[in-house]
C-alpha cells in the first residue's frame, strides 16, 4: 500500500466469498473432503437402499429371530419359488434383516440430521434477526430463549415428544426446540456486531430500508457461522435421536433409524452384539464425518472459532 497506483494491480477474477473457489478450497482440506465424502456415501446408501440387496426392512419373521451375521434363510415367494437370502448383519429380535434396516436407517437418520439442522437454523435465524434488529422485540424473544435454554434439552425433548404422538415429526420437533435458543443467540450476536459495521451504517445513510438492509448486508454475515453451527446441530441431532430411542420415546420402532435399531438391540448387547454393533458403527462414523465436516468448514469459513 506504499505508493498509490491509480489503477489496480493485475485484475483478478472477482471471487465470490461463498462461490466456487471457496468450494474448491474447502475440498482441498482433507478433513472436509473426507467428511463430505463419507456423508455423500451415506446419502447414496440411503437413497439406493432398495437396490443394494435389501429386504423390506419392516418385514418381520418370528421364526428366525436374533440370527447371527451371515445366517442364510430360504424365502418362499407367493408363487412357491424359493430363494436363499443371506442376512449379512444377522436378524433382530423380530427376525427383520439388520442389513436392510441399517441401510434404510441411513435415510431416517440423515433425514433427521438435515431437517433438524435446517429447521433450527431457519427458525433461529428468523428470531435472531428480529431480536437483533427490532429493539422492542429483543427483550421478550431473548427472555423466552433464556427460559428455553434453562430447561435441560433432553427434558425439553422428552416433553415435546410426548406433546405430539410419537413419530418422526415429533422427534424432529423435539430435537429442534432445544437447539433454537443457541441459534438465536448466535444470529443475534452477529446482527448486533454487524449492525455497527461502517458499511451497514453507510447503507443506512444511503436510505436502505430495513428488509433490504437485512437481506443485503446482515444476512450474508450469518451464513458461514450458521453453516458451521448447522453441521454441529446435525451431528447432535443424530445422537439425540439415538438417546430418545434409548429412553423409549424415539420414532416408532418399526421405522428403522440407527438410533432405533441400537435402542432395540441394546438389551441383547451381550448375546447378539450385531444388533447394536452395525448401526453403531454407521452412526458413529456418520457423526464423526459430520463433525469433521463442521470442523473443516469452521476452520475455512470462520477461522476465529477454530477449535471450539
Amino acid at each position, binding site marked *: *500500500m*506504499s*505508493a*498509490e497506483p*491509480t*489503477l*489496480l494491480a493485475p*485484475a*483478478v477474477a*472477482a*471471487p*465470490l*466469498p*461463498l462461490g466456487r473457489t471457496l468450494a474448491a478450497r474447502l475440498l482441498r482440506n482433507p478433513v472436509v473432503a473426507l467428511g463430505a465424502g463419507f456423508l455423500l456415501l451415506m446419502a447414496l446408501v440411503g437413497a439406493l437402499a432398495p437396490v443394494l440387496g435389501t429386504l423390506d426392512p419392516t418385514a418381520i419373521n418370528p421364526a428366525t429371530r436374533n440370527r447371527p451375521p451371515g445366517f442364510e434363510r430360504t424365502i418362499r415367494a407367493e408363487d412357491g419359488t424359493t430363494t436363499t437370502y443371506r442376512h449379512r448383519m444377522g436378524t433382530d429380535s423380530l427376525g427383520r434383516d439388520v442389513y436392510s434396516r441399517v441401510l434404510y436407517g441411513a435415510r431416517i437418520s440423515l433425514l433427521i440430521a438435515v431437517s433438524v439442522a435446517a429447521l433450527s437454523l431457519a427458525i433461529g435465524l428468523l428470531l435472531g434477526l428480529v431480536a437483533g434488529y427490532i429493539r422492542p422485540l429483543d427483550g421478550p424473544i431473548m427472555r423466552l430463549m433464556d427460559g428455553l435454554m434453562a430447561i435441560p434439552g433432553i427434558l425439553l425433548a422428552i416433553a415435546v415428544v410426548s406433546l405430539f404422538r410419537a413419530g418422526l415429526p415429533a422427534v424432529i420437533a423435539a430435537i429442534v426446540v432445544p437447539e433454537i435458543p443457541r441459534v438465536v443467540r448466535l444470529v443475534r450476536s452477529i446482527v448486533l456486531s454487524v449492525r455497527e*459495521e*461502517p*458499511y*451497514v*451504517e*453507510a*447503507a*443506512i*445513510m*444511503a*436510505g*436502505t*430500508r430495513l428488509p433490504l438492509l437485512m437481506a*443485503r*448486508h446482515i444476512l*450474508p454475515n450469518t451464513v458461514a457461522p450458521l453453516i458451521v453451527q448447522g453441521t454441529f446441530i446435525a451431528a447432535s441431532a443424530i445422537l439425540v435421536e439415538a438417546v430418545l430411542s434409548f429412553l423409549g420415546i424415539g420414532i416408532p420402532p418399526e421405522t428403522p433409524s440407527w438410533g432405533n435399531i441400537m435402542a432395540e438391540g441394546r438389551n441383547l448387547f451381550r448375546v447378539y452384539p450385531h444388533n447394536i454393533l452395525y448401526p453403531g458403527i454407521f452412526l458413529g462414523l456418520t457423526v464423526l464425518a459430520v463433525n469433521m465436516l463442521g470442523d473443516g468448514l469452521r476452520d475455512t469459513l470462520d477461522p476465529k472459532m477454530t477449535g471450539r
Partner: protein
Amino acid sequence: MSDATAPVLEVENLAIALPGGGDRLRAVDGVSFAVAPGEIVCVVGESGSGKSVTAFSVMGLLAKVLKPVAGSIRLLGEDILTASPQRLRALRGDRMAMIFQEPMTALNPVLTVGDQIEEVLRIHTDLGPKERRAKVLAMLEAMHLPDPERMHASYPHQLSGGQRQRVMIAAALILDPALLIADEPTTALDVTTQAQILKLIREMQERRGTGVLFITHDFGVVAEIADRVVVMQRGRIVEQGPAAQVLGNPEHPYTKMLIAAVPTMTPARRPPVTGALALETAGLAKTYRSGGLFKKAREVHAAADVAIRIHRGETVGIVGESGSGKSTVARCIARLIAPSAGQIMVGDRDIARLPERRLRPLRRTIQVVFQDPFRSLNPRRTVGNSIIEGPVNFGATPEAATARARELMGLVGLDPSALARYPHQFSGGQRQRIALARALAMEPEILIADEAVSALDVSVQRQVLALLDDVQRRFDLAILFITHDLRVAAQICDRLIVMQRGRIVEQGPTAEVFARPDAAYTRALIEAAPGREFGRGAGQVQEAASA
C-alpha cells in the same frame, strides 16, 4: 556509524525470506545499519516497508514463517542469528528490551503491573523478593508514575494508556539493557500523552546511555526524537543518515515524497467562506444512561451543548483527543444515533427527532466517509453495487446510477471498469476513494469525514485530502471533518472546533486558532504535536490530488 564507541547493534546485509505467495520474495533485503550507545536511531517507513520485521528479527521474536536467510545481527558484537534459543532468552530482557505499539495488549491483563516488571528480575537476577520489590518501586518512581506502591498492585486495565506505556518502559529498562527497541510506542496514544512518553524515552536514554532503535511511521515523531534516521521502502533501506540531514535535505525521491506529504502545522490563511448555511446545530447533546434497580444510575455526557454552523463550500474541523465527543457529534448529525437534546437544522428542517421513516427521504443530504477503509465497504458486494445502492433507493434506475458511478469513479481517480470488483481487491486508500464516490453518488450537501484519513499512510493521506478538497469545490460541499490530527486539520479546515470532554472549548478560523489559541487545552494540544517545526508541503496538496 560512529567510530568512537563500538556500536550496540550492528545489522549487516540482513535478508529475511517471506513465505510463498506474498507480493515479494523477501520481507527485508540487504538491510544494514548500526545503533551506537546513547543514540536514537529511527527506522521510518510506511506500512509494509519491513521496519517492524527488522525490529523483531533483532529480538529473535520473528514468526516462524519468516526466516533470516542472509546477513548478521550483532548485539554488542554477538551474533543473534546464530545464538541458541537459551542464549537468546538470556539476552532478551537483560541486554536488549522492547516496547510495543499497543500497551494495553502488550501487558498481561490478569497479572499485576508490579508482578510483570518483577518478572524480568526473576528471570535474569538472583535478587530476593524484597530487593526486587524495592527495585521495581524505584523504577516506577523514575517513570514519574504517581503512587508507585498502589501502581505496583494495580492491574493494567486500571491504568491509563500513557501509564501502561510507562510500565512497559519500566519493565524494559529495569536491567539497563544496552539496546531498547521501541516499535511505534506512541502511535496508539493521544497527542499529549505521546509527547510525555517521547520525553520520557529521551530522558531515560540520556541518563542510561541506552541505544534505542525506534520504529515509527510518523515524521513528526522522527523530527522530535531521532539522532539518526533510516528510511525503508518495500524491504530495503533507501536512505540513512543524521536526522537533520535526512529531514532537511533528503536525497532519495521516496524520502522527498514522504517528507513532502507531511502536512505543516502552520495553516494557510483562508478567506472566510460565505456560502449558504448548510447545517446548524444548537444545544446538541448526547447522554448515555446506565444502571437500574440496584446499581447507581450513571450518566455520561458524551456530548453537551454543541453548537455548530457549516456553510456550503466550507470545511469545519472538529479536533480533540479520544473521548472528546467529536465522533459522537458526527454520528448525531448523521442521525446514526439519536441525540438526547438539541436541534439539528438542515436547511429549515430539524432532523434531530425525526423517526427513521420520515428521516429516510432526507438522508441523501448528509453523507459520511468512515475511518476504517477495510470495514466501510460490504466485502460481499461489488464496489459498483455499493455505490449505486443509495441512488437506486431514491428512485434512480440501476443503469442511470451505474453510469453516474462510472463518472464518479473517474472523478475519484479510479478506473470505472473496477466497479465490478470486490473491495478486497483494493488498497486502503482506494477504498476510501470508493467510499467517497459512494457518498458523492447521493449528491449530498453535507459530507461528514469521520477520521477519514487517519488510518492511511502519509503519502496516501495527502492524496485523499487533495481529493476531498477537489470534490468540495466541484460540488460546493459543506464538510464536517473529524480528526485527532492537528496537522491534517491545519491542512484542510477553514474553521476549527476544539472539543474536550464532550464540550466545545474553542472555535474559530483555523489559522486564528493555531496562531492564538484561546483555551489552555488547545494550547496543550498544539504544544504536544511532535516535530512542530517540521513539515511543509501545504502548497503541494493540490497537485497531488490528481495523482
